[in-house]
């Protein structure tokens, strides 16, 4: 592609710092628990109990335990009404604002795929059974995708406008990437960006109906991979103009240095087998960051463990990079959809801070068709400077971000 025609290309202007982060996922509540789980390569996928999976091929998902999630539950009737997605977002926001109480965002950009979907399910089931619909207004009010964002902002006392991006499974990475571009362009100084999604019956059954989810373990890039498992979570990064962050003495955890987005118009659910969409997204992220593929030390792959996704992504990675370590952390917690890109960005942040390669667990055998250096089954200490995170979604939407460790 001619450089001048790349829509991701732009003048390098402001540098963009990550000054705080918060995460809730099956791997833990907060950064400390999360890095511990990552280091131990824990398998956090468990049997689904929130709804019946008797007729589904897949019976498992990466779920945030209710007792952990609701430990920080808002007091009173209002807290009782909130969707579990709101509770996840509130905890992630609180972790960010605890680290950086002075962080005043001008905008919040959040990715999701399904908002408060389970409340929509309650509502429909109650209508159908002609049951008591006393709670319907609560379900309806807490269903919209922006509600968990507003709930979280209110819980921490901020009032930034919010943009909610729903680009399917790429939403979280798109949200961070768009926020990065907004700060880099100089139009904004501080933005909260991230994503959330909670496991719901409809989405669970949807992936099962596509035979995309597996009754077995999630084995990304494995020769014997049989599909994905779903996950859930919320993750937030506080992005700030680097100079301003340094002026006010904020800790810089890492930098975001590049973002690439592409749309491949092959099929609404399947990736182009050539891997052209993922490749374009990664190339554009590299161009945006003005770094070469050789400078990338680790790739946190989209790696859903479906046959087609991993084949297309693997082809794109091996075509562009030469032996870079790759892992899909979805093997540990499943695919958290709109949250995935944000959760995985935080995994990359922790990998940069603690200098290790997160593991691709449940790996049994290499796929002969994929020329990849998989970080199989255990974490590896290493020296990391630049890492790349991929997210791809339905509708052929592809996104990649690049992060760099920061030394003052």
């Amino acid at each position, binding site marked *: 592609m001619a450089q001048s025609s790349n829509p991701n*290309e732009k003048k390098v202007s402001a540098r963009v710092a990550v000054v705080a982060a918060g995460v809730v996922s099956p791997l833990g509540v907060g950064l400390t628990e999360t890095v511990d789980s990552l280091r131990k390569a824990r398998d956090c996928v468990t049997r689904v109990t929130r709804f019946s999976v008797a007729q589904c091929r897949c019976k498992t998902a990466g779920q945030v335990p209710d007792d952990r999630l609701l430990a920080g539950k808002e007091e009173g009737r209002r807290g009782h009404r909130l969707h579990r997605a709101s509770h996840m977002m509130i905890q992630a926001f609180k972790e960010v604002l605890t680290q950086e109480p002075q962080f005043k965002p001008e905008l919040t950009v959040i990715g999701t795929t399904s908002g408060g979907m389970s409340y929509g399910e309650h509502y429909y089931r109650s209508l159908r059974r002609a049951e008591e619909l006393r709670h319907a207004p609560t379900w309806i009010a807490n269903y919209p995708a922006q509600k968990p964002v507003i709930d979280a902002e209110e819980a921490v006392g901020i009032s930034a406008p919010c943009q909610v991006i729903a680009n399917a499974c790429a939403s979280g990475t798109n949200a961070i990437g768009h926020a990065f571009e907004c700060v880099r362009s100089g139009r904004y100084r501080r933005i909260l960006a991230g994503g959330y999604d909670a496991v719901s019956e409809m989405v669970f059954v949807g992936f099962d109906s596509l035979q995309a989810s597996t009754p077995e373990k999630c084995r990304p890039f494995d020769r014997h991979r049989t599909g994905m498992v779903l996950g859930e979570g919320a993750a937030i990064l506080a992005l700030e103009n680097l100079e301003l962050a340094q002026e006010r003495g904020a800790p810089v955890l890492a930098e975001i240095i590049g973002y690439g987005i592409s749309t491949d118009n092959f099929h609404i659910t399947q990736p182009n087998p050539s891997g052209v969409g993922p490749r374009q997204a990664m190339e554009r992220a590299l161009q945006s960051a003005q770094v070469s593929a050789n400078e990338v030390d680790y790739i946190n792959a989209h790696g859903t463990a479906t046959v087609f996704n991993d084949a297309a992504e693997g082809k794109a990675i091996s075509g562009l990079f030469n032996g870079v370590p790759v892992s899909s952390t979805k093997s540990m917690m499943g695919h958290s959809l709109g949250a995935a890109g944000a959760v995985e960005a935080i995994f990359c942040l922790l990998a940069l801070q603690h200098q290790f390669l997160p593991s691709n667990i449940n790996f049994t055998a290499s796929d002969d068709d994929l020329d990849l250096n998989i970080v199989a089954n255990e974490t590896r200490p290493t020296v990391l400077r630049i890492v790349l995170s991929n997210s791809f979604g339905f509708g052929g939407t592809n996104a990649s971000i690049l992060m760099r460790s920061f030394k003052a």
Partner: protein
Amino acid sequence: MSLAIAGMGWVTPLGSGVDSVWERLLYGDEASATTISEEFNHRSYNVFRVPESVLKGAAHPRLRRASAISRFAAAAGLDALNAAGLKLDSQNVERTALIFAISNGGVIYTKRFYRDIVNEGAQSASPLLFPETVFNAPASHLAAILGISGATYTLVGDGAVGLLAIKMAEDLMANEALDHCLVVGTEEIDWLLCDAYQRWRLLCRAPPIEPFGKHKRGMILSEGAGAILLARLPRRSAAEAGEGSFTIECAHPGGYFSRRAEAEETLKRILRDLDQGEIDLVIASANGTFVDQAECGALRAVVPNAFVYTAKPALGESVGAAGLWQIILAAQALRSAELPPVLHAGSAVSLRLPLSRTPIARARHAIVLSCGLNQQAAGLRLAIR
């Protein structure tokens, strides 16, 4: 950064085509209500639907299985490109972004998909329907039709989402590698939505919508799409950006209100940020609900002398599409130098409402204001050269 409106497309219950719908509004036409029934208890609701004849030309293989929401969007998006005379090819498609504004999304297929699960069990769930339930399905269809391979975003929110999408476009266009951004807002109707808004006490049983009335009778839901092609101003030639062209001078990032009683203050803040003392008219989002009182208070406090127009009595509340419709209305009012009558408004309303077709000869600046039903609010300022 100012952006030019290079083309517009409109699919509404009053038909499609910007000039045609505008003409009908000027004549005081309003959409005809049709009745849809709830499937369990057979309650019925009045809605404003897009006439089937409107979509007859919008056939594309990619839309074969797509829901109405995607077909409305494709028709409006293609109209906007045609109006701008922009043919996307391998040269310019890389320099064009696509943003969708969505509120309730593909509710028809979502309900059908989940109904099968509830009625028959998970094994009967349709793998063909599931992809169409995803919020970005309409955007992916239009991206495929147009061959867009770069930035495609779907933004989700309430009735303010259309204006938030314009703000996002403004932010994206700060990237000088983009020349155009096509912004599309779209919505489809289903009885499930009517039931939900009814339980929330926001729906009226039958037309009319009475804007700014003393009694909040509620709204009538409608469907359709609006599309606006934005172009970077500096790249356009003087002739293109000459007399009669529109610019989005400022898109506000918006805000939210925790409680409905706080909506007025949020709207005042947005209006004050946008008002530069020369606002001739405001295209409001008043729809017969709590929104009207909030807008009325804010408008009286900040822009008391501006004309205020709302098309919702004529076109209904189209939620995800509404913001784009309002921008089209503002552009048409400035272009034609007149305003259609605000239908069914009481004469005692203390706002400058055009109760009949009203000339606005020297109007140059308009504000589009949107107060959503789910806590979001947004605005933008539009000018004609």
